[in-house]
Every structure is written in structure tokens, then in C-alpha cells.
């Protein structure tokens, strides 16, 4: 992963020192609309970024926040991230009671110092200083002022008008100061109006202001908050970063810098390795076959280990070093694979992506360095562009999966940056197809066989099971099929790793006492394996309905029932069609054979907020049908 650099939530407030004129922070003065659903209120906040020089950017934050209840505590804590390129110059604050009367103060010496490394990393140089107040009675107000110096200006932290969804904002201001001849690119998102600009001979300042923003309610199936939050991104054209200098004003130039300055120089391979690669692909005709061979070589040889120090947050290890130690992070492994491909004459592209199961693209109109967190490799073969996830030791050649599919990425090439779109794993292709044939006996026990194929984004459904020893797989499978008394045997998991990869399972199973009886009635839930849960209701839905990923599930279960069983009641055949997807069930009894068919399609997409009620109803209908029981009667 790229470094989670400066994921700084900018919070600040204005006050003119402690002794001077102090605004009145009596809790009484908070407008009541701002208290609704809010756990805390930012009374006043002022963030100033003063770019004195590329290697001297001062961030000053002043913040006064009133904590209304226990759940607002997260907004009271101050968490300052730092590393070698970021030093904390000062931090202090005071605490006030509900009447705005000071009751205590604190300074940098009261902060705890801890490592801020991600759990997935072996090592990162990121650290955090944190202060969490101990105040017993709510509400109370805490006022901070802190100043940080960045020794780089490649990444200017984004400013958000509402830093937390459950915190309302009375007043929040952002000022960016630069030299008059500094070229600065700015983009406001969801900001009404334009910034105030002030110019003097020495300085240019831009100021954004917001007032009276209410707290937001968390809603399920909501879009990426960046679609509706107000925030500002700033990128200076001339920049410096850990001794590297450059300039960019668009993706083309940024991509060029990344390639020229960070990547190109890291690809030297010894003649031995080059020879080894050429030997490896000897006899293969097409570039695609060669690329596949090399990709599989990398998968077999390397493993993912994340180490992030300084420029190493953006710059890969040397390819030769990866070759020696057989590990690296995403940058290192992509760079290594790219170097090996180059050794056999295949061109490929180092691509920056925001990797997450939640799809997120580069902003086409605004280039900046902080929009990605992961690197993948694109191999532009003739009419057959192939994408490679180099950190995985078992991904099929050309398969990206739901972590990086369907989004815009930045390819960093010799000719400069290019925005490319990764392939889409569509709703139709993301298919689960299951067939089961079962025998029900008179004691309500079931035994049978089951076969399932998973493709598209569902290919990875069994990622945590595949590759495990069998006894472990059987245990994990009980979490997939969490049915009382289920037991498996003859489990076979296979993966077809071609251009349309498929994971397949086949197994035999028994479920003791699946269909209980009362006097002469037998109850059996038909949909044994694939039930959908209902989703919460939401009163006064405000945000659009967003489905990040569509899929298609098809289940067919054939039950052979004992002699003398007749159906007294069964779930009705059902066909639901809606903009969100479709759902069909069919139940058919022919002789002693009861066939259950289910098809559930959920479409990805964005729908207006007022459709949430229908969306919820759709799930609720599916869920109640999924739990439908058949009632048999015996003679």
C-alpha cells in the first residue's frame, strides 16, 4: 500500500490566545438545529496552511468544540500524526465548562506518543501524538491550538467542512497562504460560492468559510461521503518531497514525475536475471503467454511485506533487491514484475489505484498525489489489455478482483501519466451458481450432494478457505453453511484460473434433523443455503441509495421426499422485478421430487433518496421469501 500519509483530519477553532478577548462558548449559545443528532458541535475552527517555501509549510489549527455527550468524545481528542517530514511545533489547549468558564489547560507534554503504523505493515515510520481529555460532566468545551511543519508540499492535507458525520459545525474557515508567484491548483467540492482571495505584494491568501452545518445521520447503502461532503483539495505546481523536486499541473505531468523520479531508476536487473527470464519464456510465442509465465514466476517467488519509510512511502524498492529477498510491498512487487517483463521485451504500466472493495476513482479533473493507496500493473497487449495484481500469490493472471476493478487509475509511464479504467466485474458475470440434490428421510435428516461455481467478483468468496488444510477447510465451511448439525465430506475446491476464472466447490453433506415434525406435519425451510437478510428501515432518508457491487445468485435444490408425504403448504412462486434487481422463486413438486429454484439479482447503481423505502421493501420481501417453509403432511 502507499503510505496513508497525512490522513489528517483538520480540526481547528479560532480564539485569540488565552488572555485576550475570548469568544463566548457558553453552551446556551449553540443554535438548536446544530444540536440535533450531534454528539459534538464545532463552535469555531480555523485552519491555516501557510506555504512559506516548498519545504516549509506551516499548518496552524485552532479549534473550539463543544462535546455534548459521551459519544462526542472522539471529537474531543486531538490526534496529530507526524514523521521525519512532519514536525509538531506546538500544541496546547484549554478546557471549559458548559458556561464557557475555563477549568483546565494542557500542553504538548500532556500528549501520549505512540506508533501509528498500520497493522498490515512490518514497519512504518508514522507516529502519533494524542491527547484525550478527562472531563466528567457534559457538555463541555475544549479549545485547541496546534502548529505543524511539513518539510514537503507535495501533499497538502485536504480540508473538510464537517470532519465527522456526527458533529455539527457552527463556523469553520480554511485559509491557504502562498507567495504571489506560486502556482497553485485548487478544487472545491460541494462548496457553494467561491473563496475570498486577498493579494498583497508578498502573499496571496484564499479563504473558504462555512457556517451552521448540521450533523449527518449515518445511513445504510449510502454513497462515498466525498460525493456530498464539502472539502477542498490544493496542489502546488512546484513541489519538494524528501529531497525530490518536481512540478505538475495535471495527471500527465504527475505520472511522468512518478515514473522518471521514483520508478525508472529502480528497475536495473543483473544480466543473470535478464538471461533467466529469457530462458523462462523460451519457446513461448505470444507476449501474453510470456507475461503469464513471468507473472506466475513472481507469484511463486515473492510475498507481500509492507515497509514504509520516508520516500519509500511512494518509491519502490530496487527490483534487484526484491529479486534477492523475495518480498516487497505493492510498489516493489509491481516494479519488479514490470522490470522482469521489460527484460523479455514486454512493455507494461505502473498504475496508481485506490484499492478498496468500495469503488473509488482518481478525480479526472484534478491531479494530486494523495488519491491512490495501492499499485497494480497494466500490460497493454494488442487488443487485450491485461491487469495484474502483483501482491497476490494466487490471483489468476489478468484478474483484478473487487479490490481494484471498475475504477479510474493513473498509469505512470515514460510518456507521462494516463488515466485508464480497470475492467468491470459486472452484475451478470459476478455469478454464484449452485446445484444440490438431497434426500429427506422420515426422521427429518438430509443427505446429499452440492456443487457451486463462483465467478466474477464472487470468484474470491472462498479466498480464506482455499489453500488451507482440509480439516481447517471443513471448519471454515461451517461458517459459510452455518446450518445446525451440518457435516461435510468429499470436499473438493478447485480454481480455474483462465481469463474467466471460476472457483468451484463440490461436496457431500448431511444435516441431521433438518425437518422437524409435530404430530403429522413436517416443516422444512426450502432455501437451505442462501438466505438474504432484511435491511434496516430508515426514517427520513436523506442520502441517495448506493449499491456498490451487483451480483447474481442462482440456486437449484432438488429434494427427494419420502413416500406418503404430501404438501400441505408451500411458499408461493414469486417474481419480483425492481430497478434494484430481481428475485424469482419457483417450487415444483413432481412425484417424490420437490424442486426449488431461486434467482436473486442485485444491480449496482445509485438511486434517489426517496427510493430507499422501496429498496428496503425489496430486501424485506426477498428475506421473507427466503425463509419460506414447506409443510408436509404424512398419511
Amino acid at each position, binding site marked *: 500500500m502507499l503510505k496513508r500519509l497525512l490522513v489528517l483530519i483538520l480540526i481547528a477553532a479560532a480564539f485569540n490566545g488565552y488572555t485576550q478577548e475570548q469568544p463566548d462558548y457558553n453552551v446556551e449559545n449553540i443554535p438548536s438545529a446544530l444540536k440535533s443528532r450531534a*454528539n459534538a458541535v464545532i463552535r469555531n475552527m480555523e485552519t491555516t496552511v501557510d506555504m512559506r517555501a516548498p519545504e516549509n509549510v506551516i499548518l496552524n489549527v485552532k479549534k473550539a468544540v463543544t462535546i455534548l*455527550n*459521551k*459519544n462526542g468524545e472522539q471529537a474531543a481528542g486531538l490526534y496529530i500524526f507526524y514523521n521525519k517530514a512532519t514536525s509538531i511545533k506546538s500544541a496546547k489547549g484549554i478546557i471549559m465548562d458548559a458556561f464557557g468558564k475555563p477549568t483546565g489547560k494542557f500542553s504538548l507534554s500532556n500528549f*501520549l*506518543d*505512540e*506508533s501509528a*503504523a498500520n497493522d498490515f505493515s*512490518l*514497519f512504518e515510520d508514522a507516529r502519533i501524538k494524542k491527547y484525550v481529555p*478527562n*472531563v*466528567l460532566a457534559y457538555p463541555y468545551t475544549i479549545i485547541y491550538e496546534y502548529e505543524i511543519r511539513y518539510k514537503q508540499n507535495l501533499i497538502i492535507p485536504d480540508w473538510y467542512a464537517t470532519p465527522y458525520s456526527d458533529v455539527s459545525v457552527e463556523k469553520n474557515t480554511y485559509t491557504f497562504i502562498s507567495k504571489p508567484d506560486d502556482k497553485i491548483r485548487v478544487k472545491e467540492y460541494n462548496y457553494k460560492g467561491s473563496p475570498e482571495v486577498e493579494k498583497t505584494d508578498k502573499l496571496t491568501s484564499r479563504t473558504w468559510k462555512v457556517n451552521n452545518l448540521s450533523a449527518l445521520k449515518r445511513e445504510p447503502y449510502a454513497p462515498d461521503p466525498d460525493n456530498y461532503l464539502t472539502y477542498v483539495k490544493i496542489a502546488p505546481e512546484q513541489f519538494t518531497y524528501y529531497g525530490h523536486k518536481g512540478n505538475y499541473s495535471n495527471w500527465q505531468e504527475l505520472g511522468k514525475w512518478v515514473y522518471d523520479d521514483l520508478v525508472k531508476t529502480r528497475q536495473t536487473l543483473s544480466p543473470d536475471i535478464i538471461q533467466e527470464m529469457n530462458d523462462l519464456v523460451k519457446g513461448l510465442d505470444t507476449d501474453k503467454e510470456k507475461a503469464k509465465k513471468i507473472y506466475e514466476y513472481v507469484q*511463486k*517467488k515473492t*510475498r507481500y*511485506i509492507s*515497509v514504509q519509510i520516508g520516500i519509500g512511502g511512494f518509491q519502490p524498492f530496487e527490483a534487484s533487491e526484491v529479486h*534477492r*529477498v*523475495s*518480498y516487497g510491498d505493492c510498489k516493489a512487487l509491481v516494479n519488479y514484475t514490470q522490470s522482469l517483463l521489460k527484460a523479455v521485451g514486454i512493455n507494461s504500466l505502473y498504475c496508481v489505484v485506490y484499492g478498496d472493495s468500495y469503488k473509488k476513482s482518481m478525480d479526472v479533473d484534478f491531479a494530486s498525489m494523495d488519491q491512490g493507496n495501492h499499485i497494480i500493473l497494466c500490460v497493454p497487449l494488442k487488443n487485450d489489455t491485461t491487469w495484474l495484481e502483483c501482491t497476490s*500469490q494466487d490471483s489468476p493472471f489478468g484478474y483484478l478482483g473487487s479490490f481494484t476493478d471498475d475504477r479510474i487509475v493513473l498509469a505512470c509511464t515514460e510518456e507521462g501519466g494516463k488515466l485508464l479504467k480497470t475492467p468491470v466485474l459486472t452484475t451478470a458475470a459476478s455469478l454464484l451458481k449452485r446445484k444440490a440434490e438431497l434426500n429427506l428421510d422420515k426422521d*427429518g435428516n438430509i443427505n446429499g450432494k452440492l456443487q457451486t461455481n463462483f465467478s466474477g467478483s464472487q470468484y474470491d468468496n472462498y479466498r480464506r478457505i482455499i*489453500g*488451507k*488444510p482440509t*480439516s*481447517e477447510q471443513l*471448519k471454515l465451511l*461451517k461458517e459459510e453453511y*452455518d446450518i*445446525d*448439525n*451440518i*457435516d461435510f465430506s468429499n470436499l473438493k475446491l478447485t480454481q480455474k484460473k483462465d481469463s474467466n476464472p471460476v472457483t468451484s466447490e463440490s461436496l457431500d453433506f448431511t444435516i*441431521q*434433523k433438518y*425437518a*422437524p*415434525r*409435530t*404430530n403429522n*406435519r413436517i*416443516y422444512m*425451510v426450502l432455501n437451505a443455503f442462501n438466505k438474504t437478510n*432484511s*435491511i*434496516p*428501515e*430508515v*426514517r427520513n432518508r436523506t442520502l441517495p441509495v448506493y449499491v456498490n457491487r451487483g451480483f447474481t445468485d442462482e440456486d437449484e435444490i432438488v429434494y427427494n421426499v419420502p413416500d406418503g408425504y404430501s404438501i*400441505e*403448504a408451500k411458499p408461493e412462486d414469486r417474481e419480483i422485478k425492481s430497478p434494484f434487481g430481481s428475485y424469482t422463486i419457483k417450487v415444483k413438486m413432481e412425484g417424490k421430487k420437490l424442486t426449488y429454484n431461486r434467482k436473486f439479482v442485485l444491480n449496482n447503481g445509485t438511486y434517489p433518496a426517496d427510493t430507499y423505502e422501496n429498496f*428496503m421493501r425489496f430486501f*424485506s420481501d426477498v428475506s*421473507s421469501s427466503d425463509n419460506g*417453509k414447506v*409443510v408436509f403432511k404424512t398419511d
Partner: protein
Amino acid sequence: MKLFCITFLLTFFSTAYLHAQDFEYGKITGSDVELKNTRLDSTANAMVIKEFGTASVQLDNATGKTYIDFEYHVRIKIFNKEGFNHGNIVIPLRIYRDGEDEIKELKATTINFTDGKLVTTELDKKKVFTEKRNKYVSLTKFTMPNLMDGSIIEYSYRMSLPSVFNFKTWEFQSDIPKLHSEYIANIPAMYNYNVSLRGVQKFAKQNAELKRECLSINGTKIDCSKMTYIMKDVPALIEEDYMTAPSNFKSAIYYELSDYVLMNGGKKSITKTWKDVDYELVSEKAFGDQMKRKDVFKELLPQIIGNASDDLSKAKAIYTYIGKNIKMNGFIGMYSETNIKTALEKHSGNTGDINLALIAALSAANLDAEAVILSTRANGVVNNLYPVISDFDYVVAKVNIGDQSYLLDASQPLLPFGLLPLQCINGNGRVINLKKPSYWYDLKASQKESTKYILDGELTSDGKLKGKLTTYSSGYAALKKRQRIVAANSVDEYVEKLDEQMPGISILKHSIENVDSLDNQLVEIYEIEMKVFDNLNADQSYFNPFFIDRISKNPFNLNERTYPVDLGAANEERISMIIKLPANISVADKPKDMSLALADNGGKYLTSTAMQDDSFIFNQVLQFNKPIYDSEDYLSLKEFYSRIIQVQKTDIVFKKTK
């Protein structure tokens, strides 16, 4: 759970020569290369081939201080990619007030057998990272280079530990199997440690011998006892759901200094008998001294107690006051981190600060208050044979009023008076009294976790169920609900969330009683409406009465169990409903009445359905009477749940009569 001790006497040494020593670094044998996981554990992704450690007490001539010198050496076979994470090594080092653990002479090598040759790759020293995690711990981290299926990794280091109080612990068991684990502890004759061994694994070899003049202090030569412990073929410790702290079961050897001999021949007792411990704790600055600080509360008391006249009300007032005035700072401990006066002023302290302050305040009000030291569940069980003070990690208050005793923990909000948090309910605690000798005390939850639902409703002819649902919760059940109400900010928002979570059921009206009176049961009253049928026109309709807190999944779905099943607390849930039916509806069939019981009064499940006039009455009781069940009980628990799930799948069949 087995916990026994090894006693050794310095006068009773075996003289037999025991071959026990470190193995040669990097000298790989054919059997190492050939080792497969068919040996010992076919599910193993990695296995320790050999592991050797030795610890001794040394004197730092520069400072004149003793320290523990520990050498570690291990060889691990990595069978496959799933085992690669065992090539990422993290060594935690403690940071003390006046020193820290230090690591040196670290070397690490990966050995691969490719094309008939052994190929070694050394760890690059520049790739060893030190990360200061927080004020107490720093981590030395590195990853092995060039891992592939079948790699052998080997590393060794030396560590110096400034604290001789706990001699170096050795864990024979870990999350991968070990073929050979060997530990040599060289303990100078002047030190006497209490040694305890946990877990069920047996020693393959165990030996004690005398080692002459192993340590020299101020020219005096001191003999050592050289203790050797070897375990072979140790299986991996696999964690299971509902498991008490894994450290209770992990085979490991622990030491705590009990006494040592001074250079002048005198003996300094560290921990020997409870009498010594009592004396020490009572006079300890961060413990007994804090209990004694009645002065802190002298002036505050009238204000805290108000007009409470009897002892119980006074105790309750003090308990509430401490809970509201000192917030837990996130650290637990049995000692005061600062002191209770500062904690009270800063409104912040560890659990030790808070509960020692509680004891001092109770004593200041002339109540009979004692301290109870205990080990939290995550920390494992305490050794009952002799005092091992480092087994304890928590302190609570015990106040005796009349013939009643109440256990109090003021560091956790929302607990009723007299109920300890679940994490403290863990075997025995030791009561420390300022004046009397200490004694063991059984830590039991004073209230059952209990929930009772009463539904009084009516099925209307349009297929709706309308009625009043009243829920009574007490003990930990009430605690959990109160925590959820606090998390939701208000009762209204709590109910709104509840309503949203149940799309089929609407809550029309609600009231919740005793949200803040923690000593009473929490009462929720909801007027509900739920659509059961589209209409009641069919000749027959099916209604499932198990819609309240239905059990749809068996928490015990596996076929075998190694460790006891820890449910936390005994609990009970009762549901009773009376539903009036429309005049033309009668009951044609119903779920069987059930009466299930677990052995030894471990639990029961009862259901009954009956018609009474125009209403049907349904009752259900589910009880678990023990917090912990033996691993042998796992299958009965599984079957118990299975029977519940089966009956809950069956319906009441309504028939139209007219």
C-alpha cells in the same frame, strides 16, 4: 485446566550428566530438509524443529546491578505459503521506569534446498526495525528473506532484562507445533523463585544439577542450580470460540522471585507466604497507603453522603460518587498508577486508582471496606497454592454491611451496586484487609443475567398482531442494554434504532423505566404491531411463536472440542405471551411442548403452548446455570441447541372454524 508446581531443593541435585545444550547454528540436517507436516500435525503450515533458550542472572560490573541474560535460538520449517507469516518476527521488549530490555547479537538466516543444494540467505542488519509502540513496549521486527515452500528459517539473539523479579518465562507451546523445545534456567543459589507450570503437556526430560561458581558478586562466588526442561512433540495451541484466556492452557513455565539471600547472609523475602504478601501490600505506597488515605475524603464526605443515614445508602452514595468523579484512563491494574488524591483531582486514573479511592472513601465513612485483588479473565487464573503476586492484575472493593458483603468496581459505568464486571468473575480473589490476614473469596456474579419478555396481544382479523411487549432485564443483560442506550444518546434514539432493525415490527409507543436507577431492573414497554398474514381468509394459516430472540444458528456447530466452553455468566431468558385470537380461528396443531435439561443441572429449555378461552398462551424458558462447561459437555450443548432450533422451526397451525 491444570496448574501444578515444580518444587526443587538446592540440596537434592541429580548428579547424572544430562546432555542438554544449544544446537549448532545453521547446521541443517537431512531430516530437517525432509521434514514434512505429516509428522505430528498434518494441518501445520510451519513447525519448530528445535528451540533452545537459556537464562541466567548476571552482574553488570559497570552499574553493579543484576540482570537476566537470555539467549534464544530457534529453527523453524515453513511448509507452505500459509506459513510465511511465521517468517515475520516480532520481539517485544519491555520498557521500565529505570531501564529497558535490550536485544543484541541478532542473526537470522533463511535456508532453502534448491536443485539439490542448500542455499542460505542472511538477514540484512539494516532491515531490522525498532518501533516504539507506546510508553511500555517497543518492538524489534524483521522479516526473513527469500521464503519459499519448504524454507528453513533460523535465528538467534541475546537479550538482557533488567528485572530479575520475574525470571524469564518460557513458552513450550505456541500457535505452531514444536518438535523440540528446551530451556535451561541457571538460577543462583541466592535467589529462590516460585515456579509454576501451566498447561497439560509433559516434560520429555527434566533435570536439576549444581553449577559451581556461576556468578561472582563483589568477589563472592555463588553457585547456581541449573534447571533443564525439555518438551518434545508439543502440539499447537489452537484457539477456540468461547475460550477463557489461552494463557490458562498454554504449556509454559513461569517464575516469580520469592526470596533471596543477602551478601551478609541474611535473607530477603520477596513473596513467600500470604503473611508476607499481606504485610507488603498493606505497606506498599501504591496499594495499602492509598487504601489508608481517608484524609482525601474527609472534607468531601458530608457532601457525598448527603442525608443518607444507613450504611448501605452511604456505601451506594460513595460508590456512585467515585464512579462519576474518576474516569478510567484505559489502563487496568491492581496498583494505583499515580495516587488517589491526584486521580480524584484530575478525574482520571487506572482501575487501581479508582477502586483504591473507593476503599479509602468507604473507610472514611467508617464502613468496613477491604480490597480484593484478582486476575481478570483475559489474564488467566491465579495460582492458589502459594502467592504469585504477578498473577493478579486488578483490584476491586469489598464492603461488609451487616452480614452482607458487596463487591464493587467503580471503574466501569452502569453497573448496579454489588455487581462486578464480567471480566472480574474469574475464580478466586484474595481479600486484603489493612488489619486482618488475607483470605480467598469466591468471585461470583451477584445477579443472574436475566431477561423476561411478556407479550399481551391480539391477532386481528386483518392478520396483524398488536399488543404490549414488556421486557425486564437484570444483571449483565440490563448492563448491555444500558450500554446500548448510552451509545444511542437517548432513549428515543435507542428505540428508533431498535425499530429500524426490525422491518417487520413497528413500535407505536414506548417507555423505558429505570434507565438511570441501576439497582433496579430495566423495564422496556413497547406497544407493537406486526404483520403476520396478508389476511386470515385461508382455511389454514401457520404462525411461528418463536419470533422473540429466536435461535437460528447453533453456536456449537463443530464436532470436537479441546478446551472448556466459557459462556461468561449463568443466564436465563423467559418469554411468555398471551395472544387473543379472532372468534373464527382455532388451533389445529402446535409445536411439541419441550422439556430439555443439561446434565448436573447445567441448564434447561422448556416450552409450552396451550389454549385458554379464546387466547393461546405460549411460554418458553431458556437457562444456562454455569458460566463454564467442560469440553466433554460440548456435544451435549450442541445437541441442546440443536433441539431448540428444531422446535423453533415448527409452527402453530390456525384453522378457520366458520
